């Protein structure tokens, strides 16, 4: 599970060009919160969905699902795990 989380963090940092290290992101940090979170915006969210599709084979086309999945590193990792076990 930690491997997946590291991979998600690296994907996020690469795609969003954030100048922090993977270990600076807490697993439960709110991605879109300005205070105590990463302060991402909706355009970053689209980039993350593209990244999840290209690097993890996870397809999200529904905004409601994106809002449930893109909360923290933990929620993304859980979603990937669910998809892996159901396929």
């Amino acid at each position, binding site marked *: 599970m930690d491997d997946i989380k590291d991979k998600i963090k690296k994907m996020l940092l690469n795609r969003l060009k954030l100048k922090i290290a993977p270990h600076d992101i807490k697993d439960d940090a709110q991605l879109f919160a300005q205070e105590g979170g990463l302060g991402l915006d909706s355009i970053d969210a689209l980039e993350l*969905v593209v990244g999840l*599709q290209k690097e993890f084979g996870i397809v999200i*086309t529904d905004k409601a699902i994106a809002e449930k999945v893109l909360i923290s590193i933990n929620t993304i990792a859980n979603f990937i795990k669910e998809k892996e076990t159901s396929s």
Partner: protein
Amino acid sequence: MVDVSNALPNLPHSYPFRFLDKVLELEEGRGVGIKNVTINEPFFQGHFKENPIMPGILIIEAMAQIAGIVLHHNKKDKTAFIARVKDIKFKNPVLPGDQLKITANIVLSLPPLTQFAVKAFVEDDIVAEGEIVLASEG
């Protein structure tokens, strides 16, 4: 394949800010448009007086216009706005007399945002390519 004859009139842009002359192909998720670049383009008066080159920013505008048609080809009264211009490379200058062929393909859509892969060709050479994100109204 969609009937392309009605595509261009649906473009909300009008003179002097229409950077497409014709839609060649239009289907779900992708489209191809043409912009004929003539020596009479107003921007060539200043860009540059002795050395006319189509401004890259206007090539991006043409890319966004065909992307907007792909997004809204059957929704006449909708407007889309540029939300992001990503990694656009300009590989060759576009000169008076060139015909720009521009392709826009949807990479991913998560309303209201849609990401496109865009390319511009003169004859068979790529002159510019990259990605554009449009935000659509409504």
